[in-house]
């Protein structure tokens, strides 16, 4: 099987996010970029499929902070080719990124023909589009979002996938190959790869550049951020302060007074 995996870097929200002086974007010096979580699952799902069926995994990501790390890590986990798109204009959002992915997939030698494209179903900064449906539209591929299980019948040229619905319901779909899947969760948690293996990949793996001819890619953003802010604390929550024992006692008192420990007091 020939599997393409599209990766995207997003700000690590465990870090404090700061608004830039323009009031419309995040302060980039305070940002730590990490691989989008569902993209990590997409890579894992690709690795599981390769283990089952053999084949080649090509990982594609756009240039940016920490992206080399993500690509070397993917290679250390078992990706066969890693490609970095350069020349993507800042501020074009997910739609521009999706367009760049589609362009590179159709033009870089060896990426087509492919059987599957896997990418995260959604990223936390996908303000103007999602990668999976946008690329699916440009390349005219069948598309299923929120996928949490993938089984492929290579002979039948068909993928059998589970899409998540509310309430724990799963929809089982058949998608003809080649197809685009927006992955929510791989069948197993993404594997861990030791730092030593990533370092080894840095020495042996070549990141292939794929330059975009932006002049031909016109258009530009259709969506504008007018202002960005941290959500204002609604003031709704009463904050309890103190050592764990103190806050526990306070909360217990409050819950009891609201009848929420009723019937519990023996």
């Amino acid at each position, binding site marked *: 099987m020939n599997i393409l995996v599209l990766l995207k870097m997003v*700000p690590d*929200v465990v870090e404090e*996010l700061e608004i830039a002086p323009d009031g419309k974007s995040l302060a980039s010096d305070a940002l730590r970029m990490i691989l989008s979580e569902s993209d990590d*699952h997409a890579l894992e799902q690709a690795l599981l499929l390769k283990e089952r069926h053999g084949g080649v995994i090509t990982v594609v990501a756009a240039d940016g902070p920490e992206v080399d790390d993500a690509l070397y890590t993917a290679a250390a986990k078992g990706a066969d080719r890693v490609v970095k798109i350069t020349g993507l204009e800042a501020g074009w959002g997910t739609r521009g990124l999706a367009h760049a992915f589609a362009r590179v997939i159709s033009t870089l030698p060896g990426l087509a023909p492919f059987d599957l494209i896997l990418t995260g179903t*959604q990223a*936390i900064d*996908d*303000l*103007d*589009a*999602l990668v999976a*449906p946008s690329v699916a*539209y440009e390349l005219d591929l*069948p*598309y*299923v*979002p*929120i996928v949490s299980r993938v089984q492929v019948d290579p002979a039948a040229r068909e993928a*059998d996938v*589970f*899409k998540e*619905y*509310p*309430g*724990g319901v799963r*929809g*089982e*779909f*058949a998608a003809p190959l080649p*197809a685009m899947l927006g992955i*929510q969760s791989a069948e197993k*948690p993404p594997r861990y790869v030791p730092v030593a293996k990533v370092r080894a990949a840095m020495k042996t793996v070549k990141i292939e550049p794929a330059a975009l001819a932006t002049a031909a890619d016109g258009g530009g953003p*259709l*969506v*504008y951020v*007018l202002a*960005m802010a*941290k*959500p204002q*604390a*609604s003031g*709704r*929550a*009463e*904050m*309890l*302060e103190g050592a*764990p024992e103190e*806050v*526990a006692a306070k*909360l*217990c008192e*409050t*819950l009891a007074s609201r009848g*929420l*420990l009723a*019937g*519990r*007091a*023996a």
Partner: protein
Amino acid sequence: MSGTIWVLAEHWRGQLSPVTYELLALGREVADALGVPLEAVLLGHGASGLAATLGCADSVLYGDHPALAEPMAQPYAEALAALALENRPAAVLIPLTNVSMGVGPLLAARLGCAGVNFAKDLTVRDGRIEAQCLLYGGKIQACVASAGGTVIEGVWPGARQADQGRSDRVPPVREVQLSLAEPRVRLKQYVDPEAGDVNLAEQEVLVAVGRGIQSQDNLELAENLAAALGGAVCGSRPVIDQGWLPLVRQVGKSGVTVKPKLYIAAGISGAPEHVEGMRDADVIVAINSDPSAPIFEVADYGIVGDALDVLPALAEAVEARKG
């Protein structure tokens, strides 16, 4: 009619989703502010009967086709694009749910128009729609406008109360013929979850754990507190993905929606996908080491601290009170 506000009437397995009424309530406000009609767009096959409860809208546009028998992203987007090209709506409101995911971006791509994701509210200023969007897992709010022409607005559940969008008025329905390709993706079956040992929706007290619980071994801390309170343990997505809790214990978009009397969220940041499943709990207690975690926006009581310290202290305090 050009300039109309459209709301996609989401339905699944024979029923309109509550979020449809939420979006109608929101769409009503936007349409009134712009002085244009509000129209619900209902797509399906043999589903015209669902139009009767959409009277919050001035009218219902119903598109019937075998390809629309299931709410799948590609045929839905194809149908909406055909209808939009003919009717030129000012905006199309689409719920950000698992059922409708992908419809908005596909529609925006087909129409070559602006698409906005993650809106929690829409307002009208100077005759223009502005979306208040929750980005980065709910940690940043952005006010977003678009370039003009039709805009596709993806709206989180919870923007308005569903009851505000319900109406006894039976709306006029115009049915249109659609010509659509046969969907390439085929639904084989729906798989309902296996019944678990507990039904989360019936619990009066839930102790929910998220990434902040750090390891499966620490689940015991939540279980002890749940036992002391006479409740059950549930979790947010990362805990389920790690396999620390079974799928039937997941609260949120892909899991169960719960309304317990008491919901204690420990080590849960409060991404919109989780909040959607628990925001209607009577009393919400949030424990998180990050004071800027969005979970504190929906909580009644907040504790900034390590869940691994607070959970056992709380269990002990509850037990001590029982005497």
